[in-house]
């Protein structure tokens, strides 16, 4: 409480004291301080040690001050939000903060000197948001739903524009709106700019409301792709308004339709061209890794501007640039660059979004633009709402006949309610030409009101609505445990059979495309090294290894030191003794029975690992845990929390504020890892007794035996553990030997520390801990493994 108040006070003080005089200085007597240097030149009596020169830095200073203020606004909004308990979405709060700021500026200046000018918005604030959205777009989901998305974007937007425009015109003719000088064409123009669902607003609100991924991608994809339609409609009607009614005939109309094709496909095509350019670039930037991250932003922005220059759809261009390049860019660039890009994208996108909303608020405090026409405003709100609902339901009815997984009723409700308008509509309205459209101000006012209404009010009510609907559906009776388990099993079964049947995306076309892409496109756009190692399984395995290493180290640190217990038979770490009882629920006793494995090991050490996910080790949890489990309520609760989610229930992957692995990926990895272990377990039992000299070559993917990064024989230690990737525990006589002891018979050794039960068997074999990253290319470890296999003889580990 105190800190948020502190922040608010700080900001207001700052604004009032600092910004105010600047503004006054700006708008005040400009003439007085005409040219500082000039004055200096004239009246120089002595050496001025320090001078105050506002005009010298005026423009960049103002820009930076506003960015800073917007950042502070976001900070105080977040602080406030804890208390407002997530009722008002962040975007709404930012707008309100903008109102306050606008009020301050207006109070100081009696005129709104800081407005969100369309060029600023369209050139400096919007591109990075779209780039961010497309760069993180879940491609598979997007393309498998592309048909539905296109239907909603094209037909939905056209429907909205036409109906809203015509209805408003009808009402105008009926005299409800008073004396507005707006003709049919202008109403249609207005309809087209107000019809489009806004990506910025959609992301902002859906962040807070967790919906399933299909629903999210439908609304989000629609909001991105409908720009193609919006741009066309806007330009067409703008031109028609300029031409005037009489000159419009069939030729012009057909030109309009044709322009849609050109603009939309041209924009997308341009985006793809830039994506190819970008991928090729990153393919060659091995030696300038420091700045290769910058290319993404530069080329993305270029794509935007080029499309705008050619009057094609700029948003579509950036969208497709991001979507198409993500795979290749991520594969080609160094891991550090990838991380840099992701962080920087999020910073820019978040920052821009904040600024947009704050400015939307600031712009409102301006007496010049407000022309309040009650009829116009209310009717607009009503119509966009109703026609959105009708449009969504009609289209969904049609689509469900063709979709494999139908869109449910609750999803349709959320979709229609989630059709938010935002800054794009405002930008387009502000760009209207006052001469051609005399009633620009009522239009602008209405647009602003619509934006505020949808973002703030619909944002606030979205969450409760969703919860009410969901709760209503599921509130039958308290499900028994077995029913819950069965329901979940059921979901998984259905998902599995769907997969076996082959979902709609898995037909000849997608397979053909995948083959084409693998063979030709990747050859062109990806680095050869990256190409070899883009195996999906390897990448997951690699991620697991990295996670392991991180956990291993942090665990070791937590315990103070790596607790090594040397014993010949078994290692027993009793956590209850080491820590307080608060930890005992979490950490089980771990008993490692080493005698199971015939190793002929002289000595080995065992480190204590918290995670209990290894089926190869017998675990024994305290009775405390067991007692809890028997308690019915707890069992239900546990069940609720820990059941694996099926496809339907996963949260969408795109998020404005974080790009970490989301839960579904975690679960997928975990499931994957479990099954891998059980397979390797069976592999082990199958191979037991086979001579240790057997070399594991790269197994067919089907058998899922992973080729692990090779442990190296003595003497070639220098191959691994580059200077760049120092070994984690160089003084330990340990090795990465493995988490999978049954692989000891082979050469290939997994450097995973998931369970460091068995470490090295011979002390003179200095196996380092981390050849997971033996070079700066994350994929190189596997490549090296490739090399190793052919070079070395089948050295065994059993002597």
């Amino acid at each position, binding site marked *: 409480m105190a800190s948020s108040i502190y922040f608010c006070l700080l900001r207001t003080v700052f604004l009032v004291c600092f910004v105010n005089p600047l503004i006054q200085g700006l708008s005040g007597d400009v003439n007085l301080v005409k040219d500082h240097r000039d004055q200096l030149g004239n009246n120089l009596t002595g050496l001025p040690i320090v001078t105050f020169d506002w005009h010298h830095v005026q423009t960049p200073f103002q820009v930076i001050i506003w960015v800073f203020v917007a950042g502070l606004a976001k900070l105080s909004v977040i602080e406030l939000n804890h208390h407002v308990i997530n009722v008002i979405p962040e975007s709404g709060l930012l707008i309100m903060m903008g109102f306050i700021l606008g009020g301050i500026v207006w109070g100081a200046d009696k005129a709104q000197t800081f407005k969100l000018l369309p060029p600023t918005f369209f050139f400096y604030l919007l591109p990075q948001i779209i780039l961010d959205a497309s760069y993180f777009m879940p491609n598979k989901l997007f393309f498998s739903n592309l048909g539905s998305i296109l239907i909603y974007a094209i037909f939905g937007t056209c429907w909205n524009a036409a109906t809203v425009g015509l209805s408003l015109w009808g009402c105008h003719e009926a005299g409800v709106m008073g004396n507005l000088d707006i003709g049919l064409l202008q109403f249609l123009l207005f309809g087209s700019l107000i019809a489009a669902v806004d990506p910025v607003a959609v992301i902002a609100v859906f962040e807070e409301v967790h919906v399933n991924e299909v629903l999210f991608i439908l609304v989000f994809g629609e909001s991105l792709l409908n720009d193609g339609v919006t741009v066309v409609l806007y330009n067409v009607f703008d031109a028609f308004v300029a031409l005037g009614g009489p000159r419009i005939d069939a030729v012009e109309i057909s030109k309009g339709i044709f322009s849609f094709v050109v603009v939309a496909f041209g924009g997308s095509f341009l985006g793809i061209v830039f994506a190819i350019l970008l991928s090729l670039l990153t393919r060659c930037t091995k030696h300038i890794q420091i700045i290769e991250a910058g290319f993404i932003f530069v080329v993305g922005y270029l794509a935007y501007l080029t499309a705008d220059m050619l009057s094609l759809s700029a948003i579509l261009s950036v969208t497709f640039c991001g979507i198409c390049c993500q795979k290749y860019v991520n594969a080609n660039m160094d891991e550090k660059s990838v991380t840099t890009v992701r962080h920087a994208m999020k910073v820019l996108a978040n920052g821009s979004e904040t600024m947009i909303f704050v400015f939307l608020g600031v712009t409102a405090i301006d007496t010049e633009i407000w022309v309040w026409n009650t009829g116009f405003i209310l009717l607009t709100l009503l119509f966009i709402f109703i026609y959105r609902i009708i449009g969504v339901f009609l289209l969904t009815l049609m689509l469900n006949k063709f979709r494999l997984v139908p869109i449910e009723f609750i999803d349709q409700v959320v979709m229609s309610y989630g059709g938010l308008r935002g800054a794009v509509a405002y930008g387009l309205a502000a760009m209207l030409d006052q001469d051609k459209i005399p009633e620009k101000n009522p239009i602008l006012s209405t647009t602003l009101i619509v934006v505020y209404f949808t973002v703030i009010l619909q944002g606030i009510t979205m969450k409760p609505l969703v919860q009410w609907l969901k709760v209503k559906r599921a509130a039958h009776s308290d499900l028994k445990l077995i029913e819950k388990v069965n329901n979940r099993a059921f979901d998984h079964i259905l998902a599995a059979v769907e*997969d076996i049947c082959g979902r709609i995306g898995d037909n000849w076309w997608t397979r053909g495309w995948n083959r084409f892409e693998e063979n030709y496109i990747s050859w062109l756009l990806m680095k050869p090294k990256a190409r070899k190692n883009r195996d999906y399984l390897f990448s997951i395995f690699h991620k697991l290894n990295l996670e392991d290493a991180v956990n291993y180290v942090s665990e070791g640190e937590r315990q103070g030191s790596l607790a090594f217990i040397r014993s010949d038979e078994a290692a027993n770490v009793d956590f209850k003794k080491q820590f307080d009882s608060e930890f005992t629920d979490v950490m089980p006793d771990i008993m490692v029975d080493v005698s199971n494995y015939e190793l002929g090991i002289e000595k080995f050490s065992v480190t204590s690992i918290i995670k209990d996910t290894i089926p190869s080790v017998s675990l024994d949890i305290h009775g405390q845990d067991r007692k809890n489990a028997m308690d019915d309520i707890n069992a239900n609760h546990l069940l609720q929390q820990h*059941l*694996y989610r099926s496809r339907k229930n996963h949260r969408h992957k795109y998020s404005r504020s974080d790009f970490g692995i989301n839960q579904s990926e975690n679960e997928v990895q975990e499931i994957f890892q479990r099954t891998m272990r059980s397979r390797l377990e069976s592999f082990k039992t199958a191979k037991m007794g086979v001579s240790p000299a057997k070399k594991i070559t790269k197994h067919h993917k089907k058998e899922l035996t992973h080729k692990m990064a090779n442990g190296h024989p003595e003497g070639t230690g220098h191959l691994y553990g580059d200077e760049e990737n120092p070994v984690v525990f160089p003084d330990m006589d340990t090795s990465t030997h493995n988490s999978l002891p049954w692989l000891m018979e082979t050469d290939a050794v997994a450097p995973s520390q998931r369970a460091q039960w068995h470490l090295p068997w011979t002390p003179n074999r200095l196996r380092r801990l981390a050849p997971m990253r033996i070079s700066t290319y994350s994929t190189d470890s596997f490549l090296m493994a490739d090399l190793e296999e052919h070079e070395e003889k089948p050295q065994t580990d059993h002597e």
Partner: protein
Amino acid sequence: MGLEQNYVSLEQISLLHNRFKQLSQNEETLRRDDLKTIQDLESNPIRSQIIEAFFDSRNFQKDGVGSVEEIGFEEFLTVMSYFRAPPQHITEEQREKIRRSKLRFLFNMHDTDNDGTITLEEYRHVVEELLSRSGALGRETAKGIADAAMLEVASISVGPMAPDDFYEGITFEHFLKILNGVEIETNMHIRFLNMDATVLCK
């Protein structure tokens, strides 16, 4: 073929046939490994049970026992047809029959040793597979949950038990009773197979 209750249309059959050919790589029979290549299936926790279900003789023949190594298209289709939606206008009796056959399929999935009951062990196995162990959940907890679930079932079907009573397992009848509330016949279907059909396969 014994598929009186489950109808699949010619169109669906040809689609499934294409899929079968693709999965089995143009061979005549499908093996477990072929199903394991489906990448999407990797992220499914009870994948192995489902794959087993395809190779389980009980699901194709009236009195089949054990499991087979490979299946032909007929068997594939038979299993798929369990996921067919029931046609619109059927009598109550037919609906009940369809329901039973689908529930039988589910029951067989759990009852791996085919002794007619789902024992505690078998059920535990299922629960464990379904539970994510990412949190603090250990194997013991999963066992505990399974135990609690079994107790619930026991108390519903058999009535309250004395502490020494031994509950052999969930029989098919009990299973039916428990899942009484769930509309299996309509829920358990893949939309893909949901087109109107009256034609028997082959």
